């Protein structure tokens, strides 16, 4: 019985949704005008609201990124023993990154090479890359 009632409600909801979706933009505008609505002003206010919401979401993304990178730095500082020395590296032998560039580059020093070597390891260390980095670009 209950299921039947729910089912009828579902059907009604479905029918309403279908009618809304089937309504053309022109019909909606006509209906709104008939009700005395200023559709241009309404569209503008909705547009401003949408832009504001997008800006707010982007601001949150940047804020979250800032917090995540700070956590990552703290994690590195907290590692008394560097991770690469605790675990065998996942990096294949002879690996060279597919992307490399240097600004105003000249001869690398020994400590430059050591630092690069650590970076190469980190590029293969899944634990060093949190889930909070944006995946949409990968």
């Amino acid at each position: 019985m209950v299921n039947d009632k729910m089912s009828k409600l579902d059907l009604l909801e479905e029918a309403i949704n279908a009618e809304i979706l089937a309504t053309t933009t022109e019909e909606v505008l006509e209906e709104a005008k008939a009700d005395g609505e200023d559709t241009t002003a309404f569209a503008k206010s909705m547009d401003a609201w949408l832009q504001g919401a997008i800006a707010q979401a982007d601001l949150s993304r940047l804020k979250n990124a800032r917090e995540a990178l700070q956590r990552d730095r703290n994690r590195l500082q907290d590692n008394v023993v560097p991770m690469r020395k605790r675990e065998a590296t996942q990096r294949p032998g002879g690996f060279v990154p597919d992307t490399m560039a240097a600004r105003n580059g000249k001869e690398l020093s020994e400590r430059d090479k050591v630092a690069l070597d650590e970076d190469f390891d980190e590029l293969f260390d899944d634990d060093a890359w949190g889930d909070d980095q944006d995946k949409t670009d990968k």
Partner: protein
Amino acid sequence: MTHQPQTAARLLESLSINEPEGIDLEAIAWLSGAKVKYRELDGCDACIAGRADVGRAIISIDNRSLPRRQRFSLAHEIGHWEWHRGLQLLCSKDDIRGSGIKLKGLSREAAANRFAAELLMPGFMLKNAMRDFNRLDMKTVRDLAARFDVSLTAMAYRLVESDVHPSLLVAYGKDGRHWFVRSKSIAERWFPKNRLDEQSGAYDILFGGGEDDRFMSTVEGDTWFDVDWADQVDVGEQSFRTQDNEVVTLLVAKSDRMIAD
């Protein structure tokens, strides 16, 4: 998902960044999968090592550089990650592990510099900011450089290149002219001399240990240019010393005769 490179302007727009103070380079790098590390680097100002297959990169910045230079270097490396992902801008493996780093294509370096300038000093923000200033001189450059957190040279270069006022920016060392940039509106015949004229304020700064010019002075054009009738036009001149033992001079056209047809 395949990476689609974006211009600096599009990148800022995609993050709704509309003010210079909102340009958080480290956060922008992080969102594109790049970590930033500050360390002492002996072989370069900055470098990037990345894996395009998984979208991870590590950008290293020499922490002994001046802060604004570090910032420009970071923007430059973000430019490489955005546009040159999957490219090794080094000669060979030997250059990484061996003797040195040689860049394959200088044009990619120039592209990364351009990206950095547009990321740090976006045209639309610069245009808005310029509304507060009615002339181009080093005070304007200094105020804008502080607001955008970039070096004087970077800001002056961007303003000249953007043609906010017909002008040139010229850099000299004791060995002569190192580089220059000219607004599009200045005719090409106005090519700065190879060596500094002793009458210029820049000469005194470079060779006499003089202080940076506090104000823009007006001089005859033949102080700076070999054009036959250069003495008939006036130019504004204001110079400052840089960290690289260079003197950089902002030259502002005071005559329409310098304007391109």
